[in-house]
């Protein structure tokens, strides 16, 4: 059905890998931040809230540039990470995953926060009276009750990460086989004279992936909420 060159297949695989890694890594942080924003009151809470939402309102190029000047190879934090922990982001697929994760983060946090806010806290009281201390209340009651929101956040984050373009290309450029995702590959193909056919192929692949992800998350969310409502 799809007549893609090896290099284009690599872009497809890379996109999936980058989006999956970005989502999986962003989720625990997203759950933690969502919990803090939903439940705690502290000085600077609105600042944290604004910071989380920043990638949503900033032009993606700005986010990508900020990543470049902090985490690039010669940048202070980037140089330190490379020297002491051996972690390099710049011009690597891991950097693309980081950029996608940062861009997706507000979309991961929001539904999780809403679902934590909607939890009947009297159930958490009940779990305390049954002997569950703080961590176990969270693990056995809060987390499973927030599952529909976690699925929605993961799905939105994955979709955002899959389509991310501006921050990624600014931070890690457009290197075939390393940082060239579907979006970047399509962009490249539209810049060459006879790239239309191949670009169209990639557009179709990207539609198939997006629809599949949407259907899968819809199915997961329905199952999770059916479990919660006692079927």
């Amino acid at each position, binding site marked *: 059905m799809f007549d893609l060159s090896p290099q284009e297949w690599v872009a497809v695989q890379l996109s999936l890998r980058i989006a999956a890694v970005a989502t999986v890594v962003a989720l625990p942080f997203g759950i933690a931040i969502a919990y803090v924003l939903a439940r705690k009151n502290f000085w600077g809470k609105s600042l944290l809230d604004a910071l989380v939402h920043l990638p949503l309102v900033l032009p993606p190029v700005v986010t990508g540039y900020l990543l470049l000047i902090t985490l690039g190879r010669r940048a202070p934090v980037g140089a330190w990470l490379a020297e002491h922990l051996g972690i390099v982001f710049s011009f690597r697929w891991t950097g693309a995953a980081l950029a996608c994760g940062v861009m997706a983060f507000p979309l991961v946090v929001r539904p999780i926060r809403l679902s934590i806010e909607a939890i009947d806290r*009297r159930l958490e009281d*009940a779990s*305390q*009276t049954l*002997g569950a201390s703080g961590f176990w209340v969270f693990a056995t009651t809060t987390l499973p009750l927030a599952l529909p929101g976690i699925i929605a956040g993961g799905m939105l984050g994955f979709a955002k990460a899959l389509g991310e373009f501006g921050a990624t290309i600014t931070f890690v450029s457009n290197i075939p086989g390393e940082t060239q995702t579907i979006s970047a590959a399509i962009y490249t193909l539209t810049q060459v004279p006879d790239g239309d056919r191949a670009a169209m192929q990639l557009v179709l692949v990207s539609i198939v992936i997006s629809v599949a992800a949407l259907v899968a998350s819809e199915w997961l969310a329905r199952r999770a909420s059916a479990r919660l409502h006692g*079927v």
Partner: protein
Amino acid sequence: MLTVAVEKTLGEFRIDARFDGESGATGLFGPSGSGKTSIINMIAGLMTPDRGRVVLDELVLFDSTARIDMPVAQRRIGYVFQEGRLFPHLSIKSNLDYGRWMTGFAADTAAFARVVELLDVGHLLDRRPGKLSGGERQRVAVGRALLMRPRLLLLDEPLASLDAGRKDDILPYLERLRDEAKVPIVYVSHDPGEVKRIASRVVRIEGGSVVATGGVELLGA
């Protein structure tokens, strides 16, 4: 034996309650809004008194002068809430086992079977709370509290959410519970008939304070 002496100001409302609970069932009786639920929340630890002392069999649960406030999770006080509060994401069997998991007791199939039989919930074990009737839900809530091996059982208007016919279905289970479970009970209700059937001792609450303590004759007036 349970000793309660708690003070708490909630906005305009002031609670100042002192009473003792004996083995067997103590009825906390009074009109709605008289502070009964707040008082047992302070026994369970879900609400912190401004001042006072809560002691259960020489175990100090709360003492404001000694700055003792045992965390809710460590008190091991079974609490049956008015609306049951079963965990919607767990099966009935897992709901019943939850307290044992959290307190770390080893599985005791004999105790489990006894409670299941006492409350007649055996046919519900694989179901989820969403599909249960009000009466079934409250029986499971009682079983869940009982299976954590509580030092004390608090029942907060356990029949209030049920219609009249259903109440008479549940009361015999609660009477058996009182006679067989050997756990001291504090039974909260505004219904004199209910309290009369369950409790041997009555603490009468009005406006946040204890106005009388004595036998079931207090309910007649």
